[in-house]
């Protein structure tokens, strides 16, 4: 948990200056990509330590989880791109641009929810249901924490 919080703090400091955010284009910077990699690495460690799996369960869980993380990385990247687009439009946002961002926001949220559901099903074929439930609980907690941190660096639309 400590590592994840350090990474989140790094994200917060990266976006602390609204002006600096506004310099970004819609593409992810190398620094943002690195942070995504860091978050995912921290998440993996946290997930494994919190799930308390047996050795056989770890062997079954990790390939599926890594696949999930790879898919989730695309979602993270899209989220970052939306955030960058929002930042670069922030001072001169039009209603059309705002509507476009809104649509993309929901697309990403749905992709994220669909991925979690799909991979919970996959894990359900390999792990006891109570452990899959635990996985979903942990994943939701982490996601809520990440969303909150992201919200801290994104001002409300003018």
């Amino acid at each position, binding site marked *: 948990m400590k590592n994840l919080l350090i990474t989140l703090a790094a994200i917060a400091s990266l976006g602390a200056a609204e002006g600096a955010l506004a310099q970004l284009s819609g593409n992810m910077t190398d620094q943002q990509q690195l942070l995504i990699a860091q978050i995912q690495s921290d998440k993996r460690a946290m997930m494994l330590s919190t799930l308390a799996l047996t050795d056989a369960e770890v062997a079954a869980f990790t390939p599926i989880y890594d696949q999930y993380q790879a898919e989730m990385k695309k979602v993270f990247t899209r989220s970052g791109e939306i955030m960058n687009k929002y930042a670069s439009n922030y001072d001169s946002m039009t209603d059309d641009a*705002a*509507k476009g961002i809104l649509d993309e926001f929901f697309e990403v949220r749905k992709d994220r929810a669909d991925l979690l*559901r799909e991979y919970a099903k996959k894990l359900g074929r390999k792990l006891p*249901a109570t*452990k*899959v*439930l635990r996985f979903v*609980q942990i994943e939701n*907690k982490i996601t809520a924490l990440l*969303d909150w941190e992201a919200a801290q660096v994104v001002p409300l639309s003018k």
Partner: protein
Amino acid sequence: MKLATLALALIVTAFPVASFAQDATTSADEQILIKQIQTNRRGVYAEYLKLTDAESKAFWPIYDEYEAKSKVLADRYLAMVDKFAEKYDTLTDADGSEILKERLKIERKRLDLKEKYTNRIAKVLPGKKALRYAQLEARIENLTQRNIYTLIPLAR
């Protein structure tokens, strides 16, 4: 009420969803606070959306309809959490599977509902205000969820 105040209020507030939640630090004062937040939710939108009279007239009926449908899902979620609490000490895989399915189903329905009503709101408000509404809604929901998550233990 400023968002920071609302955040603080939600963070310290317990949610009386189940027996294990009631064992947490849910005091009578906190129950009152929950009610205040529920009442002030409208106040937060009113303060931050700065709607014109015409916008208010178009926005509030849609918002109220959304809130009513949202409450149905919230009640379903609470029923699911109650069931989890009830079976917590002896949770079987069959119970876990049923609770998991219900949880994922509710979460998807909640997202669909939110998108549907945000799109309706975007038809009656300028895009920028609709986006602002969605941001406020997402932040309030995030605060509520994180608060609930802290009260629900992980499955054993």
